[in-house]
């Protein structure tokens, strides 16, 4: 807001415009570009490597699409992709459902009790991932030892990873849904009850359409967080179970397969597209659905 003031005016509009952009503006543009390069250079590198026909990162061997073909033929990569997607989808779904229940019930709680429960739910978000991961690993170990007395075992793998992801997704979904729920005018809900709707019907027809944007953004947030997670998965997975992230981690020492670059590029572009299309979609849809029901 101050930029213009720094340099003198002669008064005439045309004269000022030809005086050029002030130094501050040029410097801030350069700085923006610098940060932009810092953030996007690694991504550019990865995308370029996914088209590199040489197997090693050190050499550029010309353009190729072979890794995009080969990744679909690699059973291990496809299994990791499947695991990643299923875990992300399921954990986001369950966390959203739990988060919705939590939000509704938290709003009915007394202030003090609510803030206690809320800060407990928030722990996985505020705590270090490594500690959350270790905590979850230990509880599964302890539970396994406890159950072994009756001959049961806990197998580290899909189920433990899923539980871990739901746990760290939960605070994010609650924090996406709660504010929307808070904004709602309770009298519309009461009006629905007054007009003879059951509680469930009133919730579904009056409240849900209003909080749908929050629910959807909570779901998307949980989905992308889960998709990208490494630390929690690392501690809660067992041998033989891999997601894309854990596969990258174990492959680092022997060298990453170029197929992984192709896979990640493909996922990156997919999410980008989904959010570009979806990003505006849900709000419009929610609004129109809401209207059509009224």
């Amino acid at each position, binding site marked *: 807001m101050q930029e213009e003031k720094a340099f003198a005016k002669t008064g005439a509009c045309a004269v*000022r415009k030809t005086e050029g952009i002030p130094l501050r503006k040029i410097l801030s543009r350069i700085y923006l570009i610098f940060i932009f390069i810092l953030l996007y250079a690694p991504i550019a590198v990865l995308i370029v490597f996914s088209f590199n026909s040489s197997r090693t990162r050190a050499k550029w061997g010309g353009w190729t699409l072979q890794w995009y073909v080969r990744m679909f033929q690699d059973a291990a990569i496809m299994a990791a992709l499947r695991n990643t997607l299923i875990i992300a989808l399921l954990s986001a779904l369950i966390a959203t459902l739990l988060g919705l229940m939590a939000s509704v019930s938290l709003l009915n709680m007394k202030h003090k009790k609510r803030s206690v429960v809320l800060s407990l739910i928030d722990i996985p978000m505020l705590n270090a991932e490594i500690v959350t991961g270790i905590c979850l690993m230990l509880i599964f170990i302890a539970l396994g030892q406890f159950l072994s007395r009756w001959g049961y075992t806990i197998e580290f793998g899909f189920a433990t990873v899923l539980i871990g992801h739901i746990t760290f997704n939960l605070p994010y979904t609650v924090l996406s849904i709660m504010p929307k729920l808070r904004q709602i005018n309770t009298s519309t809900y009461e009006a629905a009850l007054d007009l003879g709707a059951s509680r469930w019907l009133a919730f579904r027809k009056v409240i849900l359409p209003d909080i749908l944007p929050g629910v959807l953004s909570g779901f998307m947030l949980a989905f992308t967080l889960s998709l990208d997670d490494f630390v929690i998965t690392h501690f809660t997975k067992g041998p033989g179970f891999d997601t894309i992230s854990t596969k990258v981690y174990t492959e680092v020492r022997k060298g990453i397969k170029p197929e992984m670059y192709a896979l990640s590029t493909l996922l990156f572009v997919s999410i980008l597209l989904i959010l570009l299309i979806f990003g505006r979609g849900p709000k419009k849809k929610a609004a129109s659905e809401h209207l059509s029901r009224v």
Partner: protein
Amino acid sequence: MSNRLIDLQHITKAFDGTTVLDDMNLYIRENEFLTLLGPSGCGKTTTLRILGGFETPDEGRVIFDGQDITSLAPNKRQLNTVFQKYALFTHMSVADNIAFGLRIRKKSEDYIREKIRYALKLVNLEGYEDRSPDSLSGGQQQRIAIARAIVNEPKVLLLDEPLGALDLKLRQDMQYELIRLKNELGITFIYVTHDQEEALTMSDTIVVMNQGYIQQIGTPEDIYNEPQNAFVADFIGDSNLVDGTMIEDRLVEIFGVRFACVDTGFGTNRPVDVVIRPEDLELTALPEGAEPGSEEYEEAAGRITQMNPGFLEGIVSHVIFKGMHYEMEVRARGFEWLVLSTRMFQVGTKVLMSVDPFNIQIMNKPESEDEKAVNPEGGIG
């Protein structure tokens, strides 16, 4: 000339291609309470921000005390601003807020302490030094904002809708406070508002603005009694604004009826805008069933024309009791006239409506396209 403190010359300002101020010229005298009045988007706040130094005009100059301050930074100007919604520093105590400008100027702590006490006394908030701005009511925050500005002894205080966020009762109290402050401080106040009542109550001079143009400059009485165009008439107070034809000097025709007036110089048979304030319309009830030509009708009409030639016949269509008076609507010749009267006329009453020639205000119709933009449709934002 010597008491022209501020001179705005040919000020033009556009945002994103939309002209907010167009070749505005205005001077402000020393020691005057000047109000910029108009609907939102009329350019009044932009004018104030140009004075404060928060905007630079695209064209034109701002002369302050004989010096060109057009591109002077706000921290170098001898004016202080009281912002909309107060803009207090919430991380500081009341005393630190007030001391802010003085500390910047490196005044001694003794001087600052004295000034804080003086300023708080002036705004009737003694003993509030250590309070946090967040803990104060809107009215109190407003006073602190004023105190913070005036301790710097500015020559001019700029006030940007300072009462907008307060409730009605407090707003009225603060109007008296501001007048008292201005008299005690003896400095120039430039006040921005969209509230015509505020403007009429406090100002020495009112500048009515719309769509980047000054519509009229004058005392509150001038503005109220003699609006220069349809916009001002419609914006200030309630009024009946109708089309008329100036038959000749001192004679205007409204809805086919000729009325005497006092205006001259509009030519002959020229279409004009006519303004009649609702309190200036005089009603005479007709007995039921009195038709034109009947004895009662002619008698009533005769009584009126003795005093004011010309009247309109109408029927009362709405009555609302407003405490001091009745607010009525009278339908006459297809137009709903607003009438204020201390006497009540039942809905359905047939009335004859007349008006004193002095209370008919004649205005030229807008001529150019630019002036047409000045129609009252803008309303009060």
